[in-house]
């Protein structure tokens, strides 16, 4: 056992052999040994070993494209390994499909939910099962599921329709789904990516109570802080290989993990140069708008954003910040005034905002930000195909378009075989680089960035932040909408908190108090939170 392949041996200060430890510390729920999976042009898993003990939370850490998801898809039966052995409770297994994996007590909670919005929680959980056979005696199942939810600390009403649930609750339904199928090992693929801070705490509580009940959890993530908080042990992957196996979470620091993950030291030392106050680039005056379901999403929002300034909007998902971005970019009708450089552009066509130098990094990268089946070229020229050098009257100069695309692909390090690769084949980080390349390269005067780094790895976050600050230094006004408070506090000059479609507080970033912002984000009134309305805008130096 100790004679494992040398290339997987952890190096440096973390020279701990997890196999020896695991032999000492109890039985293994899952053991993957020498897993190899090749895709055309890539070795996604190159001799990966992974061991999960019974009753632990084991984090699988790695950047996008490191091979975490491939490894877990192999464990879940979606892919067949080209080589390697899988053992569950010590028994070798070969899964032909996720169904086999479920039968063996493995359940995967995917990052993207697979729920039917118009059905109840119970109905969603029962989908695909053999029971009930004919008569839907749902009430009986409701009770059963309520009990299961309670014993695992997953508070959700089995009779509620899924569309009525918050994202956190929907995730609980996904977890219940696999628990109901008898899963003893849960694979959680970036479960916190969609959650608000409070919901993350709830999730961690649930995970702890599940491990206490003898279940084992594989926690896939690339967020170092939460991995250190929740995991018992950590396995780090990079470029298809394991760089550290089964490190006890208590023995490492964030910095060490980042180094293992990225392969070099990551220092987020971002320079935020002082900027003189510029002219007002964006002003909202009493803007009201309805959300997709026709209920008011913005209820009288007034804001001011100046050139050379980053205004961070802090809000929990669904409090109107997405609609705010759409109103400014012309995608959503509204009442009130939206002034860009003093001109009212409310309810004007999207094209007009683009023409005024407004760029938009949208929240939904695959549905809005890119066209999945079109090439990288087609996706990169989405906003520039009407202008020189690509446009020649009504004809398009395709060689100019390819030139632009090649330049952007190289300049923004979009990793893809060619510029003709379809966008859907790009990893999350590369897709976001594509969008950023397009939106930043247009040298916008006003940039609306919605969740620009969600789901990105450490290296990509760092480069995205740097790009945003470069734009700011070039005099652009940036509206940064993010659920990541740390990100806002790192980048923004001012912070505005939104709750239920209203701005509930504005702060200068260096006076901002995380706790107070957190309270405002969750609906405490300004008095309760003791907020001080900062003088709007105008502060230049940082």
């Amino acid at each position, binding site marked *: 056992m100790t004679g494992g392949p040398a290339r997987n041996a952890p190096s440096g200060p973390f020279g701990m052999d997890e196999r020896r430890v695991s032999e000492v510390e109890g039985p293994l729920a899952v053991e993957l040994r*020498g897993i190899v999976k090749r895709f*055309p042009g890539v070795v996604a898993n190159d001799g990966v070993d992974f061991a999960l003990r019974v009753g632990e939370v084991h984090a699988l850490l790695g950047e996008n494209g490191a091979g975490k998801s*491939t490894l877990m898809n192999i464990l879940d039966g*979606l892919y*067949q390994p080209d080589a390697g052995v899988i053992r569950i409770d010590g028994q070798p297994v070969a899964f032909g499909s996720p169904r086999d994996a479920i039968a063996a007590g493995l359940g995967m909670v995917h990052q993207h939910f697979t729920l039917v919005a118009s059905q109840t929680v119970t109905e969603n959980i029962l989908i695909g099962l053999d029971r009930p056979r004919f008569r839907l005696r749902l009430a009986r199942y409701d009770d059963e599921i309520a009990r299961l939810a309670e014993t695992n600390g997953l508070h959700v009403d089995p009779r509620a329709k899924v569309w009525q649930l918050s994202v956190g609750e929907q995730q609980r339904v996904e977890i219940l789904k696999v628990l109901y199928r008898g899963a003893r090992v849960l694979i959680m693929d970036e479960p916190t990516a969609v959650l608000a801070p409070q919901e993350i705490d709830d999730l961690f509580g649930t995970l702890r109570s599940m491990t206490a009940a003898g279940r084992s959890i594989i926690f896939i993530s690339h967020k170092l802080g939460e991995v250190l908080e929740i995991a018992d042990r950590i396995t780090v992957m990079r470029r298809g290989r394991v760089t550290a196996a089964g490190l006890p979470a208590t023995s490492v620091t964030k910095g060490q993990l980042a180094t293992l993950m990225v392969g070099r030291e990551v220092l987020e030392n971002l320079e935020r140069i002082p900027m003189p106050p510029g002219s007002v680039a964006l002003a909202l005056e009493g803007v009201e708008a309805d959300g997709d379901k026709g209920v008011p999403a913005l209820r009288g929002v007034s804001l001011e954003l100046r050139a050379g300034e980053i205004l961070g909007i802090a809000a929990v998902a669904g409090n109107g910040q997405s609609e705010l971005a759409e109103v400014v970019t012309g995608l959503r009708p509204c009442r009130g005034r939206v002034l860009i450089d003093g001109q009212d552009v409310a309810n004007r*066509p999207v094209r007009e905002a683009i023409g005024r130098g407004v760029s938009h990094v949208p929240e939904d990268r695959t549905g*809005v930000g890119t*066209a999945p089946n079109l090439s990288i070229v087609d996706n990169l020229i989405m906003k520039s195909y009407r202008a020189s050098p690509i446009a020649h009257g009504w004809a398009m100069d395709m060689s100019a378009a390819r030139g632009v695309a090649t330049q952007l692909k190289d300049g923004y390090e979009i990793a893809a075989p060619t510029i003709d690769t379809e966008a*859907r084949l*790009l990893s999350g980080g590369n897709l976001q680089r594509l969008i950023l390349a397009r939106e930043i390269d247009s040298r916008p005067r006003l940039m609306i960035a919605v969740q620009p780094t969600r789901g990105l790895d450490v290296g990509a976050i760092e480069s995205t932040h740097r790009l945003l600050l470069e734009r700011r230094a070039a005099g652009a006004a940036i509206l940064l909408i993010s659920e990541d408070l740390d990100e806002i506090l790192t980048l923004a000059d001012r912070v505005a908190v939104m709750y239920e479609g209203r701005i509930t507080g504005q702060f200068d970033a260096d006076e901002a108090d995380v706790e107070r912002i957190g309270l405002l984000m969750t609906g405490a009134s300004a008095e309760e939170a003791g907020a001080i309305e900062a003088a709007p805008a105008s502060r230049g130096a940082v």
Partner: protein
Amino acid sequence: MSAGPGRPSRWAGSLFSVRLEPRLYAPRWLSPALTIGAVAVALVLSGIILAVVGADPIRVYAHILRSSFGSIGVISDTLVKATPLILTGLACALAFRMRLWNIGAEGQLLLGAWAASAVVLLPIVPAGTPGFIVLPVMLVAGFLGGAFWGLIPGFLKARFGVNEIIATLMLNYIAFSWIQYWVFGPWTEGGFQMTKQFPPEAWLPRLDDLADTYPVLSGLTVHTGFLIAVAAAVVLWFVLERSAWGYEIRLIGDSPRAARYAGIRIARNILLVFAVSGGLAGLAGMTEISGVVHRLQDNFSPGYGYTAIIVAYLAKFHPLRVVPVAILFGALILAGREIQPSGVPAMIQGIILFCLIASEVFLRYRVSIVRRAPVAAEAR
């Protein structure tokens, strides 16, 4: 990795199972190879059915080939049949590119034919006007007639979100009845369901017209409409692949939300695409009555606008590929008449379409047959 979820499927065998794994990259040769393979499989399947009903498939196929490509005369006839198929095929290919399921090419063809007839019969240009004026006016009228018929579902879709499949299909029946009204009523030739013959100025020139100078061309029915159709294919190819509008159509077709985000006006493009698509189908109606029938009559189209759907699909919505595919189907229609009035050729067409659609699965998934051994291959 970025691959979507796999679709494992287990077939009964206990030792082997068939697995579909999503493909990340499809090699360039795969798509044309699959098309040819699908057609070949379709011909084998059709052959089996032919054999079952007691015909010799080889002889049937040989007969089809002979009667559509066997001599200059029949090749010319094949091209005549292909002409409306090219134009309606282009109409469908254009709309399908934007995921507008215009299955109303038949109705748009009929309205185009009606409008072109109106030029002569209403009349819009006085009798005795020379051909170089009448024919262009008829062409424009044909295009506009089809475009108008396309704009109706286009407007309903753009303004009210009415499903274009239903709207275009229903409009086909209205167009059919409209033609019947005119050929039975106001324009009837002595009570028969046809109009009087157009004056020769309103006939598209045929190769046969040159027979006085070049006797070898005698009897060749292929008319200028074929050139118009091929030219339309080239123009449409250029527009789709090389123009900003073609790019917008591509973008809307793949992701309307992304297109809106990029500042593209979707409603406007729905109207435009429907107008041009209908117009192309309308041209097919004009060339058919002016180049072949020389009058408007009941049932002059044997469903070109429906066959066009298959043609567009087979051509993968690519304008230049529409031309050879339409010629193939033109041959099938022509030879079909020789073999059997309706059954066999329609069956072959149907089987080709089925095989083609089924073959798409190989483009998206890699199919592998794996041994269901108790343990995956031991690595070491």
